[in-house]
C-alpha cells in the first residue's frame, strides 16, 4: 500500500491550518474541531488496531482517563491546565500500559482481547459514576477562565490550531513508526505472531509499547475534550460512544494508514451532520449512521477510503500511461 510521505502530511495539515483564516463561522470551526478530536482518538486506536492488529473495543478507557485527570487536577488540586493536560496524557499511557500488560501477558488476542478492553472501559465508567473524586453522577465542571495559561480561549481558532497541531504530531508519530524497526516488528506481529517471534521479535513488548503509545494519543484527545467543553462525566468520558468512534474513523478512512483516521473522522462526521440536517437531530440517530457505516465499510471496502483513493490513483496512472496508444489509435 502506498504510504503517505511527510510531504503529504504537511500538505494536508497546511490546508487545514488556513481554514480559520477563511471563515469565522463557529459552526464550521466547531465541526472541524470535533472531527479533528475524533481523528486524534482514531489515530490512537490505529496504532494498536491498524498497525498492531489488536482490536480494542474499550478505547474510552484512555480517552476518559485523559479527560478526567486533566479536569480533576485543575479543579481539585489547582494544577496548571497545561501541566494537567500533560499529566492526563501520562495517566492515559499508564492505564494503557496496565491493561496491555495484563491482557498480553495472559496471551489474549482477537475477540478475547476486544472483550477484556470492553470490560475495563465499563468498569472505569461505573467507578467514575460513583466515586466522589470524579463528581460521581454529576460530573466535573472546569471553571471558566478564558486565558491562554488556563488552556481556554475566547474564540475557537486557537482551539482549532491546537487540536490540529496535536493531530499533526500524531500523524508524524505514526509515519515515524512506519519507517522504523519497531513498525516492522509491529506489522509482523499483526500478520503472524508466531512467525514474528521465530524471527527475534519480542511480541509481548512490541504490543505493550504499541498499546501505551495508542493510549497516550487517545488520552491527549480526552484532555483536549475537557478543555474545549469544560465538562466531563462518566458517560462522556468512558462511554461506548467514544470507543465506537475510536475504531470507526480508522476503519472507514483506511486502517493501518497514516491519514486513514483523519479521512475517516471527517467522512463519518460529515455523514452524521448531513443525516441530522436531512432527518432531524435526535438521540441515537448519529450512532445508527455510524453503525451502518461500520457494517457497510467492512462489507464493501474493508481497507477504507484510503485504499479506494489509492485504487483510483492507480487506475488514473494506468489510464495516463496508455495515453500514447489512445492518441495513435
Amino acid at each position, binding site marked *: 500500500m502506498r504510504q503517505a510521505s511527510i510531504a503529504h502530511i504537511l500538505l494536508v495539515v497546511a490546508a487545514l491550518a488556513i481554514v480559520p483564516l477563511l471563515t469565522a463561522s463557529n459552526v464550521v470551526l466547531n465541526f472541524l474541531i470535533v472531527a479533528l478530536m475524533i481523528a486524534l482518538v482514531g489515530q490512537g486506536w490505529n496504532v494498536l488496531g491498524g498497525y498492531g492488529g489488536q482490536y480494542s473495543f474499550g478505547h474510552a478507557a484512555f480517552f476518559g482517563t485523559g479527560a478526567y485527570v486533566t479536569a480533576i487536577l485543575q479543579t481539585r488540586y489547582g494544577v496548571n491546565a497545561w501541566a494537567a493536560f500533560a499529566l492526563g496524557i501520562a495517566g492515559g499511557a499508564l492505564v494503557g500500559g496496565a491493561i496491555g500488560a495484563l491482557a498480553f501477558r495472559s496471551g489474549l488476542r482477537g475477540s478475547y482481547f476486544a472483550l477484556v478492553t470492553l470490560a475495563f472501559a465499563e468498569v472505569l465508567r461505573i467507578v467514575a459514576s460513583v466515586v466522589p473524586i470524579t463528581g460521581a453522577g454529576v460530573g466535573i465542571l472546569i471553571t471558566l477562565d478564558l486565558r491562554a495559561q488556563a488552556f481556554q480561549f475566547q474564540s475557537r481558532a486557537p482551539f482549532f490550531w491546537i487540536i490540529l497541531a496535536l493531530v499533526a504530531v500524531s500523524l508524524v508519530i505514526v509515519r515515524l513508526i512506519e*519507517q*522504523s*524497526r519497531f513498525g*516492522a*516488528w509491529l*506489522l*509482523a506481529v*499483526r*500478520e*503472524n505472531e*508466531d*512467525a*514474528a*517471534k*521465530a*524471527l*527475534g*521479535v*519480542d*511480541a509481548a513488548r512490541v504490543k505493550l509499547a504499541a498499546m501505551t503509545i495508542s493510549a497516550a494519543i487517545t488520552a491527549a484527545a480526552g484532555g483536549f475534550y475537557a478543555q474545549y467543553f469544560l465538562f466531563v462525566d462518566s458517560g462522556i468520558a468512558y462511554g461506548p460512544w467514544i470507543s465506537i468512534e475510536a475504531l470507526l474513523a480508522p476503519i472507514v478512512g483506511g486502517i493501518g494508514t497514516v491519514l486513514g483516521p483523519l479521512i475517516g473522522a471527517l467522512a463519518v462526521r460529515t455523514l452524521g451532520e448531513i443525516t441530522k440536517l436531512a432527518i432531524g437531530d435526535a438521540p441515537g440517530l448519529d450512532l445508527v449512521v455510524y453503525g451502518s457505516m461500520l457494517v457497510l465499510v467492512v462489507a464493501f471496502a474493508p481497507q477504507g477510503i484510503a485504499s479506494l483513493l489509492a485504487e483510483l490513483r492507480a487506475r488514473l496512472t494506468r489510464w495516463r500511461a496508455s495515453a500514447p496508444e489512445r492518441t495513435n489509435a
Partner: protein
Amino acid sequence: MPEPLLRVERVSKRFGGLLAVDDASFAVAAGGITALIGPNGAGKTTLFSIISGFLAPSRGRIFHRGADITRMPPYLLARRGIVRTFQTVQPFAGLSVHENIAVGAHLSRRSRAEALDRAAQVASTVGLGDLLDRPAASLTAAGRKRLELARALATGPELLLLDEVLAGLNPPELTTMVPTIRALAERGVTIVMIEHVMQAVMSLAGQVFVLVEGRVVAAGAPASVVGDPRVIEAYLGHGAAARLAAAGGPNV
C-alpha cells in the same frame, strides 16, 4: 571433545495421554547438515518446537554451546542465532516479499534502509530477487517456501532449523532448492532439517537421526541409517526388513 553446537538431552514431551517425544537425545556439531527423519507423527516437528522455544519439554534439556536454553522464548533464541521455519508456511500475508524478509533482517540491523538492503541481497540468493515488491500472499507454494527460508536467513542465523522446507516441491523446484541449501551450509550455517524427500536427505545430509514414535532409533551417516533394519521397519512395517533381505537387499 568440543561442546557441540546443539545438544538435545533426554527430552520428552507429553500431551495429556500422548507421549509425543520420548527420551530423545542427539547432538549436532557446528557446520554441516543434519537430517531428522521418521514417519509421520513421529514427533519431529514437536521436537523442533521444543528446541526453538515454542513448547516447553515435559522432561529433559537443550544446550546451545553448553548453555542451557531449555525454556528460552523463541525471540531470545533467534537473537542467539537459532532460527526455525514452519512446516505450514507462515508468510506475513499483508506485506510484500521485501518487507517480509526485512523483518528477519531487522534482527541485526536497526535502520530500515539497511534492513531493506540486506533483505534484497538475501532475496537474490534464494531466487526471489525479481519478486521483491509482490504481496507475499501472491506467491506460489514454492515461492512461499523460499520466502520462509529467506526470512530466516536474513536474521543471520548460526543454526537453522528447517521444517520440511522441500515438501510439496516438484522436481524442477527441488533441483534449484537443494543446491541453495547446500550453499548455505558451505557458508557456515549449521542446518538441521526435517525432511521426507529422501533423495535430498541422501545428497545433503552429513548425518541423520531417525525418530520413530518419539524415540531416536538410529543415528549415523545417511547410507548406513537407510539400511538399518529398524528404520526400514518403521517406514515399511513389521517384518519388512526380513522380507527385503530375503528378496536380495533394499534398493536405495
